[in-house]
């Protein structure tokens, strides 16, 4: 499909196809095919074109997913966030599966740009879909070297502790300064994946020096408000399909004030 948005970006800068192509180190014919939608640029070319025309290179990949209702302005904020931070813990409750999928892609691509190692723990079919889209953006060896998918179905029946000890920690993280982990739809308790991983890594001095960005995502219609509040107390950042904000209930925040409720204040 023709990329009219790309043509508009170029025209708004008063540039010809030739000028953009030269600045992006590609030939005009190739660039023209990118505009007409006949070719999908690889990541490096996408970045170069985006630099010349001053937009977010992830715009090339959002269009793959055909999200008519997706809010690109807000997504830009989230992609900016993923590209700016190396560490943190984020609780994501999503309303739209498409947005969730889009954000995982953004998380992985921005992780790759930052040379972070990424772990995705999700159902097999979701992993396949992610790999399919990533295959249009990254090479096989880039995916192999930077992204590891864990199929949750394969791990059923194993104790979370054993899985973390025997599988996840056997991965080679030594060459990476930062690690990103996205965990979908897992029960939240002291013995869940993320809690166990965090315990391991905070105990291990060598790994502790690494930056770790955790995201735990849930379908917002499948968890109760009560559970959501409980989790918000443990996560510094809260993400929705549209934005990332400070979690208002995060116990250890120095940014927000948590007052006692009315009757507790009365009894003080």
């Amino acid at each position, binding site marked *: 499909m023709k990329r009219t948005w790309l043509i508009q970006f170029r025209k708004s800068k008063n540039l010809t196809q030739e000028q953009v192509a030269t600045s992006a180190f590609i030939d005009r014919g190739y660039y023209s095919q990118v505009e007409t939608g006949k070719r999908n640029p690889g990541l490096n070319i996408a970045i170069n074109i985006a630099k010349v025309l001053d937009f977010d290179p992830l715009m090339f990949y959002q269009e793959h997913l055909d999200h008519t209702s997706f809010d690109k302005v807000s997504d830009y904020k989230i992609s900016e966030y993923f590209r*700016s931070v190396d560490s943190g813990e984020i609780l994501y409750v999503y309303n739209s599966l498409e947005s969730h999928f889009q954000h995982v892609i953004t998380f992985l691509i921005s992780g790759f740009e930052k040379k972070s190692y990424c772990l995705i723990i999700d159902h097999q079919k979701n992993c396949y879909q992610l790999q399919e889209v990533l295959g249009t953006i990254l090479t096989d060896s880039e995916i192999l070297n930077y992204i590891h998918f864990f199929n949750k179905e394969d791990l059923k029946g194993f104790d979370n502790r054993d899985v973390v000890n025997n599988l996840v920690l056997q991965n080679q993280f030594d060459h990476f300064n930062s690690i990103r982990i996205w965990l979908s739809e897992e029960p939240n308790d002291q013995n869940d994946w993320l809690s166990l991983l965090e315990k391991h890594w905070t105990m291990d001095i060598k790994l502790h020096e690494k930056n770790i960005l955790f995201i735990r995502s849930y379908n917002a*219609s499948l968890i*109760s*408000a*009560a559970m959501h*509040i409980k989790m918000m107390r443990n996560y510094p950042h809260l993400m929705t399909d549209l934005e*990332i904000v400070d979690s208002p209930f995060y116990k250890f925040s120095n940014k*927000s*004030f948590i007052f006692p409720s009315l009757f507790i204040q009365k009894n003080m």
Partner: protein
Amino acid sequence: MKKMISLTKYVDVPNAAHILYFFENNNNYIENLLAYIKDGLERGHHLLIIENPTIYTMVEPLIGKQFSNEQQKCIHYIDNYSFYGYYGDFHVHNIVENFGEILKPFFKDEISIRTWAHVEWKKLDDISSELEEFENLADCSVNGMGLMSVCAYAATDLSASLQTTLMRSHEYVMTDTELVRSSLYRNTKGLTP
């Protein structure tokens, strides 16, 4: 600069404050309701309590015990089942219009009033879009009328999806034990890394 008033002796809020309360424990809920009534009465405000008959039957004797007859005259009760059309449809515009009509005489007589509304609906119905519209309209009304208002929801009956939506239309969020500012309110407070 916005005029600030005291919600409690520790917390000042703008004159129009829309507070979203997710409760889990009935005893704490009743304690918070009584504290809200007490704070209002101490500041010479009237209270409009939109509550279900079961809970209000438990609250009534406590009101009788804690407040003088004169003070009790300032507490006005409305059955929330009929207010929200519990047995029928959740008609957003009717509810908001009705709310305005109920408050009109107080405004006419320049009486300050605070409201507490326990929002309930038929459990089988998915009314998320109606609730979103209702709370957006209610937020405008609350701000427009300079009201202090609490909207209470049972946290175990509500999805996180609806909760997130509601946090966009309420500046303050309360639980049984905490009171915070909603970081999703009006979606204006995005985090900058």
